[in-house]
């Protein structure tokens, strides 16, 4: 569906179902240089299992218009604006990678609006090396290739897939290539600049589920564990052989874990 948010036309995947703002809302926030297609194997599945899904493309990403947002704090404010426009009072936030930083910020600062958190491929800080930042500015195709290569675990590199005939690496590259040319650089800069992750995590009181990949080289599991330890009462699922792109690499682990965590 299309929706204007702060005057910008936004694309929101709802998993192929009409959206009910009074339902059990599950907002899926994509990571750096990604878009709603991160959750291609979660959005439809969970939307047909009792959840009302909103998987937006942030501005400048996927099928959304506009320019990418500059900071994690801006992204959190933008999600609140989205919830307001959609008539949503409270929601569960499910983030992946950079989307988790936004989720931490939301949960800590908008407690009355956020019911639960699901953090996938996450850490309290996601510093990005200068080489990748520079490449995302000057050689975007190379940066995309590097990120998809580093981001996926061993089975993706062997072109194994739960979706018959699909290559996760090449699909991942094309997903990133859809975005505004400035999106990846803006996202990486936003990740680098965000310093509130640890304090936000410590302030979280909502039930939280962390799903981590044992072979994740972008947000290594040791940092994910630290985040889980910081969030009071959080639960953790570790997928030993998964890399950073867990929604594609182990879709049913995500789907089953989310349903068990949310009790549906």
């Amino acid at each position, binding site marked *: 569906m299309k929706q204007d948010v702060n005057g910008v036309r936004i694309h929101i995947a709802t998993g192929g179902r009409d959206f009910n703002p009074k339902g059990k809302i599950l907002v899926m926030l994509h990571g750096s240089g990604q*878009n709603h297609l991160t959750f291609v*194997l979660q959005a439809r599945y969970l939307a047909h299992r009792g959840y009302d899904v909103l998987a937006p493309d942030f501005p400048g990403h996927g*099928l959304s218009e506009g320019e990418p947002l500059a900071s994690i704090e801006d992204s959190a404010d933008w999600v609140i604006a989205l919830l307001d426009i959609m008539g949503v009072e409270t929601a569960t936030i499910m983030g992946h990678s950079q989307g988790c930083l936004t989720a931490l910020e939301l949960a800590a600062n908008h407690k009355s609006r956020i019911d639960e958190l699901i953090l996938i491929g996450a850490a309290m800080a996601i510093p990005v090396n200068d080489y990748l930042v520079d490449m995302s500015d000057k050689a975007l195709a190379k940066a995309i290739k590097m990120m998809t290569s580093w981001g996926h675990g061993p089975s993706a590199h062997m072109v194994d*897939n739960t979706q*018959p005939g699909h*290559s996760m690496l090449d*699909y991942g590259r094309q997903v990133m*290539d859809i975005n505004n040319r400035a999106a990846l650089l803006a996202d990486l800069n936003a990740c680098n600049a965000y310093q509130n992750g640890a304090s936000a995590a410590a302030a979280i009181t909502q039930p939280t589920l962390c799903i981590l990949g044992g072979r994740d080289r972008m947000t290594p599991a040791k940092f994910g564990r630290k985040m889980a330890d910081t969030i009071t009462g959080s639960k953790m699922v570790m997928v030993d052989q998964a890399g950073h792109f867990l929604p594609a690499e182990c879709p049913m682990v995500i789907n089953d874990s989310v349903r068990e965590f949310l009790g549906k």
Partner: protein
Amino acid sequence: MSGDYKFDTLSLHAGHVPDERHGSRAVPIHQTTSYVFKDSEHAAALYNMEIGGHLYTRISNPTVAVLEQRVAALDRGVAATCTASGMAALTTAIMTICSSGDHIVASSRMYGANINLLENTLPRFGITATFVAPDDLDAIKAAIQPNTKIVFGEVIGNPGLDVMDVAAVAAITKEAGVPLMLDCTFNTPWLLRPIELGANIIIHSLTKWMGGHGIAIGGAVVDGGNFDWGQSDKFPTIAGPHYAMNDINFYEEFGPAAFTAKFRAEGMYNFGPSMAPMNAFHILQGIETLPLRMQRHMDNTAAMLKFLDGHEAVEWVRHPMLPSHPSHELVKKMLPKGAGSIIVFGLKGGREAGKAFIESVDLASHLANVGDAKTLVIHPASTTHSHISAEAMLEGGLSDDMIRLSVGLEDIDDITADFEQGFKAAARVRKG
């Protein structure tokens, strides 16, 4: 893993990770029609395209999926779908994109069945084609109409060996907002990966070099994932609510794999052009050695060109690696590893000499296939095109004296010796 695996490694491994229970190193043959659902919810999720998996072998199969993923990886596509033959791949790909009233711009120098499909069969269903020379960029551009939905050609034409400038044609189709679909049977991904040059959909007859053994028929459609189906309202069954799939919008739901999602959900489901699991297994065995075989094909082809070019029994030789070929300069840049292992040549003495040559060779097999590990020859004028007039053959770029040679992997000395005795038989006919 510090980076992406390279071509030779992917040829051996892509698509298959040994399962935890049995650990089979070879790809298992899942000779089954159906798959047991875990529960009703699992079945519903599969049918509704919410998750990946298998529900019926007409639509997908684990052994075939390994082959699909291997081909996708070699071509750098987002996905591939395998079919019962190369023609099934082409037909289903066209039907995935086109509806009645749509138009295709196609190369006039292609495999006869490709031409026949577009010229005679599809018009019965309201899909028409304009044929243009594959190396005439202006003609390709001029032939694109408002209802054109595909530009289609072969990278290396069969049997005339005309070569398409993929990057130049891709620039034209991108500007026109039309996908470029290429039959890549003659080049295989070892020689060229046209998706990297801007092509959008790749068709393979896997029966040929990809399998290489001549024991299994199969085809594949590779989705480059690099065409924006939503950029216009030209593709409403991909980028709009689908009439028969609960209003699913493949473009919004599956993004770069929208074409493949529709190909499988509609094409495999309704047309049923499925590849047999056993054939997938056979073709996988061939692909494991594709890099080794292709190098040998290229080496033997280079040697045969040297042997044929200037031979006293030979009137002319055509191959893109020869400086006399009109696309030779393009080929040096676009196909640096070689331009395929098909050579066409004319024998002095015309049709009768050609027939005598074909019937006297012992090692080379006289048959209709190409791309086998074994050397193959055919004389189109006395066989595949025997019912066509000499004038009509010339219009199609074929001549009365033409021999099509598919260079195999035998010792080159044995191939040339076989040809020498064939040439002697042709000479006897020529001299009467």
